[in-house]
C-alpha cells in the first residue's frame, strides 16, 4: 500500500512538466494551431530557466525567463503559421530542431569554452503543506509535492475556467472550430490564434523549467527527450480538455515512475519494453478513439481574410 502511494506521488511529480506543456498545447490547439512545437518550447524554457537562475541567483526569475523563452520560440511559430500560413505541423518540427541546436549552442557558447559546462542549480525542494500533509495516504500523495506541482494542479482548474467561463475562452474555442463564424461574430481570428500560440509557449516553457529546475537541477542537451510529443499525445488522449490531458500526463508519469522501480525489482520484463509503454499506450488509445476524436474542427487550416 505504501509503495503504491509512493508510486502515485512520484507519478504526479514526474507528470508535472508534461502537464504544463499539455495545458499550453491545449491553448494553441483549441484555437486551431497544431502544437507540434511543444518539445522545442519546453526545451527552450528548460534552458532559459537554468541560465537565468544561475545568472541572477533566484529561481523565481528563472521561471519568468523560462516562460519568456518558450514564448519567444512560440512567437516564431505564430508568425510563420498565422501570418504566413506555413504548414503548422512541419513548422512545429522545424522549431524543435531549432531549439535543440540553439540551446546546446548557447550552453556551450555563452558559458563553456567549447565544452558543455555543468551548471548546477539547487532543485526546488518539496513543499509540504503543514497539517494536510499528515493525512494518511492522501497526505504524502497530494500535499508533499514540490511547489510547481501545486501550481500545475491549480492551473488545470484555471484553464478550465478560462476556456468555459470567460468570453476570451469562448472566442478562442470558436476560432478553433469555425474561424469564419468567429469573424462574423466580431472576433479577430488571427490575433486570437497568435496570442494562444504564444501563451501556450510560455506555459510549455515553464514546464521545461519544472524539469530542469525542480527535477534535475541542471540543463543537458535535449533533456526534454520527447516529452513535448508525449504532452501532445496526452492532449489528444484527453480529448483536448485540461482534465483529460492531466489524466494522460499522469499515465505517462506513472509509466516513467514504474520503469524506475521495476528495474530495482528484477522482473523478467525488460526495461526497454516498459519504456515503450507510454508510446504504445498512447498509440493504442488514439487508435481506439478512431475518427471519433473530437478535435477542434478548424485546426490546421489557416484563416485568410478576403
Amino acid at each position, binding site marked *: 500500500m505504501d509503495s503504491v502511494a509512493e508510486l502515485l506521488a512520484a507519478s504526479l511529480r514526474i507528470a508535472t512538466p508534461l502537464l504544463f506543456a499539455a495545458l499550453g498545447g491545449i491553448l494553441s490547439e483549441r484555437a486551431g494551431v497544431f502544437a507540434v512545437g511543444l518539445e522545442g518550447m519546453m526545451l527552450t524554457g528548460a534552458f532559459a530557466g537554468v541560465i537565468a537562475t544561475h545568472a541572477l541567483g533566484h529561481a523565481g526569475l528563472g521561471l519568468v525567463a523560462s516562460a519568456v523563452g518558450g514564448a519567444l520560440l512560440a512567437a516564431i511559430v505564430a508568425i510563420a503559421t498565422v501570418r504566413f500560413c506555413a504548414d503548422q505541423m512541419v513548422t512545429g518540427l522545424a522549431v524543435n530542431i531549432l531549439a535543440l541546436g540553439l540551446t546546446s549552442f548557447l550552453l556551450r557558447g555563452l558559458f563553456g569554452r567549447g565544452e558543455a559546462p555543468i551548471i548546477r542549480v539547487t532543485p526546488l525542494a518539496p513543499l509540504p503543506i503543514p497539517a494536510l500533509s499528515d493525512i494518511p495516504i492522501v497526505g504524502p500523495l497530494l500535499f508533499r509535492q514540490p511547489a510547481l506541482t501545486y501550481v500545475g494542479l491549480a492551473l488545470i482548474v484555471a484553464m478550465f475556467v478560462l476556456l468555459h467561463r470567460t*468570453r476570451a475562452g*469562448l472566442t478562442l474555442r470558436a476560432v478553433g*472550430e469555425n474561424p469564419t463564424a*468567429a469573424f462574423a461574430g466580431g472576433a479577430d481570428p488571427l490575433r486570437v490564434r497568435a496570442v494562444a500560440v504564444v501563451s501556450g509557449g510560455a506555459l510549455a516553457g515553464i514546464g521545461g523549467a519544472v524539469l530542469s529546475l525542480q527535477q534535475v537541477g541542471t540543463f543537458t542537451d535535449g533533456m526534454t527527450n520527447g516529452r513535448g510529443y508525449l504532452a501532445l499525445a496526452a492532449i489528444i488522449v484527453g480529448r483536448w480538455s485540461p482534465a483529460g490531458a492531466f489524466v494522460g500526463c499522469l499515465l505517462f508519469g506513472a509509466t516513467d515512475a514504474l520503469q524506475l522501480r521495476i528495474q530495482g525489482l528484477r522482473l523478467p520484463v525488460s526495461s526497454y519494453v516498459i519504456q515503450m509503454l507510454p508510446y504504445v499506450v498512447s498509440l493504442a488509445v488514439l487508435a481506439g478513439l478512431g475518427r471519433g476524436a*473530437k478535435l477542434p474542427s478548424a485546426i490546421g487550416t489557416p484563416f485568410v481574410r478576403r
Partner: protein
Amino acid sequence: MLRMQGISKSFGPVHANRSIDLEIPAGRIVGLLGENGSGKTTLMNVLFGMVAPDAGSIVFKGRPLTGHSPREAIAAGIGMIHQHFMLVPAMTVTENVMLGWEATGRWLRPAAVAARIRGASAAYGLGLEPDARVELLPLGAQQRVEIVKAILRGAELLVLDEPTSSLSPPEIASLLGVLRRLRDEGRSVIFISHKLGEVLEVCDEVIVLRDGQVAGRAEVAGVGRRELAHMMVGRDVGAPIDRVARAPGDERLVVADLAASDAAGVERLRGVSFSVRAGEVLAIVGVDGNGQAELAGTIAGVIAPSRGAVFVDGADVTAGGVAARRAVRLAHVPADRATTGLVAEMTVAENLALRAFDDPPFRRGPWLDADAMSALARERIAEFAIRASGPGTAASTLSGGNQQKIVLARELGGRPGVLVAEQPTRGLDPGATRFVIDQVLTLREAGGAVVYISTELEEALLVADRIGVMYGGRMVGLVRREDVDLSRLGLMMAGALQEHPDAAALYGVRAP
C-alpha cells in the same frame, strides 16, 4: 436607413458587383432577388464587412461605414443571417449567442443570457432552447439562433441570405411571420432570395439584381410574377444557334431513382429518373444547390449513390466508379474546373492525359510515354484551338476559357458516347461560351447523349432538346424545347410550380 452607392467588387476576373446603388428605408422588408452569380451575396458581405469592396460607399443611419469588419457592422446595428450559418456546431445556443458579444462582459454569465434568449424567443415565436447544442438542432432552428443573435444585439437592419433554402414549408411560414413582426417594430429587413413566391409573399418592395447590376425595382403590390421572372432571367432568347432537328436514337444513358447525400450526410438528391437518347441534349436547369452536383457526381462515378442505378448503353455502371464510366466512354466535365477538372501545376499535356494516364497509349510498360502525351496534346491544341505556347505549358498560366478547352478536349477528344457537363461555361466570356456550346452540339450531331447542367436558362435553351428542372433534389419538370415557356420555367426553378413530378413515369423507367 441604409444607402449603398457605387459598390463594386471583383474576385479576379469575376465582376461580382458593378457599381450598385441601393437604398433601404426604415420599417420595410425589401427583397433582393436574383439568380446565382447575380451578386446578391457579395453585396451583403460588403455591407456586413466580411468582404472589402473595391469601390463605393455605405451610409447607415446617417453614419458612414468604411473599411469595417463585422464587429463594427454589428455595433452599428446591422445583423446578418448567412446562407451557411455562422455558428459553431459543437457549442450550445447560449454560447453561440455570447460569441463575440462584448456586452456579456469578461466573465460569462450563461444563465443571464439564457434568460434573455428565452424572453426574445417567446416575444418573436422562435421556440429556442438555450442549452441545446447547435449541431443537434434542425436547420430551421439553427437559423433562428442566428436571428435571435441579431435581435439581442439590437440589430435595426437584418439581412437574411437565402433564408428559406434549407427550410420546410411550415418553417418557412413561421420565419416569414417573425420577419413581419420585426418589420412592424420599425426594423428593416433585407431578404435575399431567388424564390419569387416567398419574396412576393413577405416583402414590401423588391430589387432585382442581374449580372452584378440592378436590373429593376418595384413595389410588390404593383408587380406580377412574370414581370419579375423576366427581370431575373433577362432578355428573351435570341436566335438559336443552328441546330439540326433530329429524331433521337436509342437510349444511351438511363438513370433510375438516383439518390445521394452530401459530405455532411444530408440527402441532396432525392430520387431522380430519366433517360437520354443518342443525338439528344438534356439540359438540367435550376438554382445551384438543388441536387445538381450530386446528380452529376453519381452519374459520373465520383460520388457513390445511396440508392438507384446508372446504365450506359445498356451496361450497369453504378458500382464501378470512374473506371467503369471510362470503360463505357462516359465523359465528365466537372463543375469545379480549377481544382477537380484540372491540376493547375501540371502541364497541358499531363492534364489532357489526367484520366487515362494508366492506359496505353500514355503508358508503355512501366513508363509514362511523354512523347505520346505531347503528340496527342499537339493534336488537341490544334483541334480545339487552345491558346497555349505548347504541350509543356503549365495549366495555371492559361485563361479560364483555355483551361476549359483543355477539359473539353480531354473529355470530348475521345469521342465519348455520353457526356455529363456541369456548368461548363461558368466564368467564361461569350466567345469561349459559344465554343463550348458548339462542341456540345457537335457531339450531339455525332450521336452522343449529353446531360448539360447549367444555372443559365438562356444557355440551356440554346443547346437543349429537352429541359429538366431540378428543385429540392427532385426533377420537378421535364419539357421539350419546343414546349418551353420561360416564365413557367422560372417558376419551376423557384419551386413555385411542379410539372411532371415523376419523370420516371414518362419514360417507363422502373427502379431496380
